[in-house]
């Protein structure tokens, strides 16, 4: 399905492209993010850069012992090629909204649509998209500007999850319509 509309005030939300995480993403995904950042900036649309500084403490099958995990300072530094964000938020969970004032900052700028990119597709990107959809934004998932450590998780999110909470589009299509 295509991207039907670009609202008058969209924002680009780049999730967790930081020193400790971004090296796991393919070079093409990083390049697409840089291209999108430059395009949004050129149009005067806000660019939001998000990083993660800690993980939630809950016990899980993958971390049965639980406990909050702090991410080392050197691992939270945003990729320099992204430049500075118009809005920069640091989160302590997966989604960019739950532990930050991102919603208030976007509302103050009149943003009605968010384009979500970054890593990882099924974790930070998906939680951010879910939180944005729940808060009433139109959500666009730029599928070739995101990546997951597990390609199967990426495929599942893009094919089965995202179509129910947003419009899935490629970088080229976004650039064309911006």
């Amino acid at each position, binding site marked *: 399905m295509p991207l*039907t509309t670009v609202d008058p005030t969209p924002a680009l939300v780049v999730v967790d492209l930081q020193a400790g995480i971004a090296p796991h993403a393919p070079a093409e995904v990083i390049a697409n993010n840089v291209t999108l950042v430059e395009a949004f900036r050129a149009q005067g649309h806000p660019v939001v850069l998000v990083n993660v500084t800690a993980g*939630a403490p*809950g016990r*899980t099958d993958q971390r049965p012992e639980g406990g909050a995990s702090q991410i080392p300072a050197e691992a939270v530094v945003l990729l320099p090629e992204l430049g500075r964000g118009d809005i920069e938020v640091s989160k302590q969970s997966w989604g960019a909204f*739950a532990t930050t004032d991102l919603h208030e900052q976007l509302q103050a700028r009149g943003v009605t649509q968010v384009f979500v990119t970054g890593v990882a597709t099924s974790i930070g990107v998906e939680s951010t998209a879910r939180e944005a959809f729940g808060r*009433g*934004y*139109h959500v666009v998932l730029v599928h070739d500007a995101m990546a997951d450590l597990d390609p199967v998780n990426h495929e599942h999110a893009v094919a*089965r999850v995202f179509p129910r909470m*947003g419009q899935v589009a490629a970088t080229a299509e976004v650039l064309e319509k911006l």
Partner: protein
Amino acid sequence: MPLTVIDRRAALVIVDLQVGVVDMGVPGTPDVVARSARLADAFRAHGHLVVLVNVDGGPGGRSDANPAGGIRRIPVEELAFAPEHGQRSDDLVITKHTRGAFHGTALAQELAARGVTQVVVTGIATGSGVEETAREAYAHGLNVVAVVDAMADRDPETHAFCVRKVLPKFTETATTDEVLAAL
């Protein structure tokens, strides 16, 4: 992975087992309702909170599934809970307006006020309201248990994928019997 422990203050959160959802005919619905009801009885018997969540609409964002967007309203007669839950006056009722039970509701404050540190989640649909509620609970710093045989999705592949690949990242997955044994 086995369920490690039920916290001293836990809550059962039953997502969207309301008339309009139970009647959709999602495969496995009768088992989901029956197991959720068994869990609710056991949680009440142990003095744990039972939270009954229903949904009165959906957000208006454009999506591939709904390209024109627009807020979806659910008729009030579809909000009533399935009678099997045996709703009691000390159950907490939360009406949500999107997929997750936390955003836009008092659930986080209500749980915090009771000192609840763990939520045990069941309901329909696995990949929508249940997963979203579990993600929100995890983000709120809670321990989350996903009762994988007390949830279902209209897309069985989505259910299977969530149980195998998605939920283990932010929940402890367990069966109804395992939760009952751990109470």
